[in-house]
């Protein structure tokens, strides 16, 4: 790449260049990095709340019968755990936080296409989050429907589902606007020389994700709007007594929520695709295959929603079609895993924390993906559907996949954003503890699910006790790892040693500018890109 270095006006980069004083430098900023950090910190905060709720759930399940909370509280808690983790952590997690922080820099842009809209998205996110929290304390009390809001229960319960539905609608709107912004940015604001085949894979994954956000999210909007209408004005479109069909709610819900799974996982795959080459000092193997598979996942992911509904009472023909399509989607994911492994081959591998987290992504995601095949196969799904096997499966994919990728991104890019390095040894120890706790926790869940324990059970029959206890113990180990990791990251941000511009030896654009980046990322002249994102030879790393 051409020399895009400028003399920074300050060694704290954009942190010193707020347009407004004090807190308004953040709340009114349209700078993509500041907005990215706003998202980042909110997302971390909600993750901690969600994780705490998860720990409480595990504690309740430590023994059969009432342990620490009543059944109603338990139901509200798992609903809240799901809503927070999905709508406030995983979906916005990587795209809104790291997408905002890094994507414009990666394509050589000074900001996203619509900076004000970007800030507006964040405000929508916060509004949605506040409404979701408000629903706990108003109306009929915290929603107790599970994050899936299935009718007719959700239409009948006296708890505050209506407000939660409004919150989901607004959060969906925020997600749409971010997606729209990113698609436009990637189409319109690539700098000179940044051809489509030179876009870093992280940005590619965000591009694919953004299209899903745009095309699938409105469907959840109308779904929760209809739920709201059903509760408030009694339009019984899903009410059998009024000729409605409760199964149609599930169709509409999953038309969004299955693609949403790919909104959650694709950016994680992008992070891993960016990290592995840097720590192997080799170009990402099969760049084009990974790009195509991202787009294929985005498209094919929109065709498979009803595999959540094999037992719902829908037609057997639908089971046949959706089961078939589901297995098709498995292929692009497998292609990515093989390409990542091939990238390691003949490389020069440095096991720094970002790579460790990325590798654990591959392992845990593979386990999650393979158990996903069990759920895709019609007969096997019938047995494990709505059991702890499913709970274990999606935690492997969502937490082991997206969560680990989020942590990988944190260890990879935060030093760039804050210009300081965390303690790598502690990061490695925390990683090891987390992976061990994770495996104990979620493998126990899968086994107990195979034995037949249904999910969303406040209480269980005695034969499930020992595995539940094992899972709870695993959750404690996992929690220790999480606390250690976050503590280390925070210490690193504020007190770590300064890092140079390119601590890992990356070849993409974000490593060519100062750490922290200056206000508009690049100096007077826009960068001109002359080689691919993983061309370490031309970038002068090798």
């Amino acid at each position, binding site marked *: 790449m051409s020399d895009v270095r400028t003399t920074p006006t300050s060694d704290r980069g954009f942190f010193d260049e707020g347009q407004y004083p004090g807190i308004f430098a953040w709340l009114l900023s349209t700078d993509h990095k500041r907005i990215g950090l706003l998202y980042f910190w909110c997302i971390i905060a909600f993750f901690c709340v969600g994780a705490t709720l998860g720990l409480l759930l595990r504690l309740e399940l430590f023994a059969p019968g009432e342990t620490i909370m009543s*059944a*109603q509280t338990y139901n509200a808690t798992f609903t809240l755990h799901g809503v927070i983790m999905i709508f406030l952590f995983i979906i916005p997690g990587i795209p809104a936080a790291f997408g905002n922080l890094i994507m414009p820099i990666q394509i050589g842009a000074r900001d996203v296409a619509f900076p004000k809209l970007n800030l507006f998205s964040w405000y929508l996110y916060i509004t949605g989050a506040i409404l979701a929290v408000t629903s706990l304390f108003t*109306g009929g009390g915290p929603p107790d429907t599970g994050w899936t809001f*299935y009718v*007719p229960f959700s*239409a*009948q*319960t*006296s708890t505050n589902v209506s407000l939660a539905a409004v919150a989901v609608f607004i959060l969906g709107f925020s997600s749409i606007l971010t997606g729209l912004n990113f698609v436009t940015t990637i189409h319109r604001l690539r700098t000179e020389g940044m051809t489509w085949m030179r876009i870093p894979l992280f940005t590619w994954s965000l591009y694919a994700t953004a299209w899903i956000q745009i095309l699938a999210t409105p469907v959840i909007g109308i779904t929760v709007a209809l739920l709201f209408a059903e509760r408030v004005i*009694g339009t019984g479109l899903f009410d*059998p*007594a009024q000729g409605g*069909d*409760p*199964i149609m709610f599930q169709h509409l819900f999953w038309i969004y929520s299955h693609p949403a799974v790919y909104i959650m996982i694709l950016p994680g795959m992008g992070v891993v695709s960016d990290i592995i080459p840097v720590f192997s*000092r*080799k170009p990402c*193997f*099969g760049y*084009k295959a990974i790009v195509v598979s991202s787009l294929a996942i985005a498209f094919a992911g929109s065709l498979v929603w009803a595999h959540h509904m094999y*037992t719902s*009472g829908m037609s*057997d023909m639908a*089971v046949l079609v959706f*089961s*078939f399509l589901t297995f*098709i989607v*498995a292929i692009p994911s*497998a292609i990515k895993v093989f390409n990542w492994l*091939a990238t*390691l*081959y*003949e*490389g*020069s*591998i440095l096991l720094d924390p970002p790579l460790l987290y990325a*590798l654990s992504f591959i*392992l845990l995601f*593979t*386990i999650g993906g*393979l*158990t996903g*095949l*069990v759920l*895709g*196969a*019609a*007969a*096997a799904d*019938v047995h494990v*559907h*709505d059991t702890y096997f499913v709970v274990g499966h999606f935690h492997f994919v969502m937490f082991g996949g997206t969560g680990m990728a989020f942590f990988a991104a944190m260890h990879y890019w935060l030093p760039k954003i804050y210009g300081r390095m965390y303690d790598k040894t502690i990061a490695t120890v925390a990683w090891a503890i987390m992976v061990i706790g994770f495996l104990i926790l979620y493998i126990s869940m899968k086994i107990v699910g195979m034995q*037949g324990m*249904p*999910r*969303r*059970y406040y209480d269980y029959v005695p034969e499930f006790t020992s595995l539940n206890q094992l899972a709870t113990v695993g959750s404690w180990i996992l929690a220790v790892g999480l606390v250690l990791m976050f503590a280390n990251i925070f210490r690193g941000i504020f007190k770590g040693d300064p890092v140079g511009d390119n601590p890992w030896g990356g070849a993409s654009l974000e490593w060519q500018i100062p750490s922290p980046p200056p206000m508009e990322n690049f100096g007077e002249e826009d960068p001109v890109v002359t080689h691919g994102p*993983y061309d*370490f030879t031309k970038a002068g790393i*090798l």
Partner: protein
Amino acid sequence: MNTQPLITTTEAVDKAFYIIFGISGVALLGITVAMVYLVWRYNRKRYPVPLSQKDHNVWLEITWTVIPSILVMVMFWYGWEGYLSLRRIPDNAIPVQGTARMWSWLFTYENGKTSDKLYVPVGQPVNVRLNSEDVLHSFYVPAFRVKRDCVPGMETYAWFVAEEPGSYDLFCAEYCGVAHADMITTVEAIPAAEFAGWLAEKPSATAAGKGLLQKHGCLGCHSLDGSPMVGPSFQGIGGRQVTVVANGESRTLVSDRDYLEKAILDPGVEIVEGFPAAMPPYAGKIPEEDMTGILDYLVSLTGDGSSVEEATEDEAEEANKPEEEGLAEEPTAPADAEEPASPAERGEALAAKNGCLGCHSVDGSKRVGPTLKGFWGSERIVTRDGQETTLVADDGYLIKALREPSAEVLQGYPPAMPPYPGLSDEEIQDLRSWLETLK
């Protein structure tokens, strides 16, 4: 019976499991080993500079696209094949109607016999036709690998065959509200001859009568063994002397067929001394033939009622009873050994369980809905069909307000309350007893 070898649901599903787990296990092992090996082999300490900058290989890409494609198609096929076995009901399957409701199961057999456990003969397929009375539930028997949602307004089915006698867990697998985890019963697989006997027990007046009492919810308030519940026990009710209060005057009479019929259809007229006027009128609610059956049975309960011949045959149901009560009324009650809670206490627990207190205060303050303080017997101005009417909060009003709250909406309040069709009559009586205490 067995014209061809029957593939059980367990066998059909497990085949898919073995194949998918087999392929997946190999894949996982391969990927993990490859990853660890590569990280170890090409460590930077060993190779400070990468050996190559290879970044693509078309043949490799094709290989690892095609092979997984074939493998997943294999998995798809076995999954689908197993699923078809689950959907093809064997010709000789016994039909059973399975009804799910918040939060219990009711199984009805061809001859009209009902049970809250699913009794099946060993070795013979059973087809359970499922429906739901309220929200989604799911019929799940892990041992037989079958699961099917119960959808209101729609019939679904699941068939299975129990190869071995035994008691198998039957769960509700679709989240259905606060007592979802308590919606558990069992499949009782018994030898075919025993099953036939059990099924044929219908002629036995006791079992039939008891079944009717169960069906209409009588046993929620009246015991058969003499223990006091909300209402008087049925033990010895046939021909027993009872003291009743009518219009403030008490008198003693003999509990005969006429009295019992009156007491069921219009219980408010004469109240048994020492018991609350809690029983709802059943006029028009019990079909003629059921009424005859109930009366026949009740009249037959004479003497100390150490209950004739039914002791053995009803063991299973007796054993199940405390559990069912726990389900319906006190999911959080610590133990069934304790004294039964008073109706008012149960009512309070019910109100908490159903989330009533989210909208209704008990201290007179206004929330989404009206306060419950001083509710009982108060005058209410309600809007019915757009017209204002004044009425008194009594049994009829309470039942309507709970089952169909939108029909009569209290002046000054939004029509926000959802209907609670899941509340049984006994539960409503408990609520009523509790409401009476809120002066």
